[in-house]
């Protein structure tokens, strides 16, 4: 330790002069022999990526010469020509629409007969709804998934939920001090 710095520490906290001791940290063997090469390799890759990026950004040689014209053409397009609508087309559509209307009127009474003359004016009570549901065949989400898919689902580690994480990330900030105390 340099004298000046040693004196300074001795004056402030003599205990720390002895504590400095040996360096407790170690590095993997050959670390410093390989570090230079590692850094240079990373720089080479970065340089390569940067040059690729630059080449991707390259533009056609006459791009800027033609750009002004392109922009001007877009903002002030040449006079638009008036649109000619052929009237016979409208007539044809009108005739077709009339036929459809006539057919609908003729067919209407028959279709009405097909609808059962039943009304649902009575309200269904909750109990009745539960009774109906309990009679119907029970289909859960699990039934809709193949056994194989289900096994895969439970084996997938990404789906594991850490309850502690959930508590920390979401719940703990929403509790009051009293609720936190009870929880702890």
């Amino acid at each position, binding site marked *: 330790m340099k004298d000046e710095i040693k004196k300074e520490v001795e004056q*402030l906290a003599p205990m720390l002069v002895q504590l*400095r001791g040996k360096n*407790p*940290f170690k590095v993997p063997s050959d670390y*410093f022999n390989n*570090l*230079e090469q590692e850094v240079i390799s990373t720089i080479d890759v970065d340089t390569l990526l940067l040059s690729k990026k630059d080449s991707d950004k390259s533009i056609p040689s006459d791009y800027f010469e033609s750009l002004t014209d392109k922009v001007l053409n877009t903002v002030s397009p040449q006079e638009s020509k008036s649109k000619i609508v052929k009237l016979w087309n409208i007539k044809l559509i009108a005739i077709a629409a009339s036929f459809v209307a006539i057919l609908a009127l003729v067919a209407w009474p028959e279709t009405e007969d097909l609808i059962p003359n039943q009304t649902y004016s009575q309200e269904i009570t909750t109990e009745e709804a539960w009774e109906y549901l309990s009679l119907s065949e029970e289909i859960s989400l699990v039934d809709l998934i193949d056994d194989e898919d289900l096994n895969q689902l439970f084996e997938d580690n990404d789906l594991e939920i850490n309850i502690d994480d959930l508590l*920390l990330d979401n719940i703990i900030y929403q509790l009051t001090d009293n609720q936190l105390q009870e929880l702890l």
Partner: protein
Amino acid sequence: MLTDKQLLQLFKTDKDAGFRVLMNQYQEQVYWHIRRMVIYHEDADDIVQNTFIKVYRFIDKFENNSKIYTWIYRIATNESLTFLKSKKRRSTVTIDDEQNSLINELKADSYFDGDEVQLLLQKALKILPSKQKAVFNLRYYEEMSYKDMSEVLTTSIGALKASYHHAVKKIEKYIKNER
């Protein structure tokens, strides 16, 4: 060992050759500075690589207003402080828990070979804010002058002296209480 002037001249004639010389000259001391800041080898390795990549990229813009080594130390310190800041932002544990987990991790770390006293010193250093830890490390371990520290940390010499004295006192008090 090349002087700054010689090194910069070499960079002008052959950038890669200049960079190899610069790395040979500074890689170990820069690594140890970063390692003392971030503790773990894997983190230090990432940061030391980022530091030298930045040195390579920006050496052309280096102005001869400061020494090359203080400039490299500035990059290394900033990289370390940024890393510690983002690590702290991600952490949700208290300082006590952080200290305890640090000790457990260091005991299990194959790249740490310190005794109980060294562990206690690391625990004490954990109570310092990151920038104050940098001040303490640069002076206590790197034996850097306040003038050079001022270039590294872009802080006035007076402020650095006060910060270092305060850090030393805090560490001494902590160790006395723990022993």
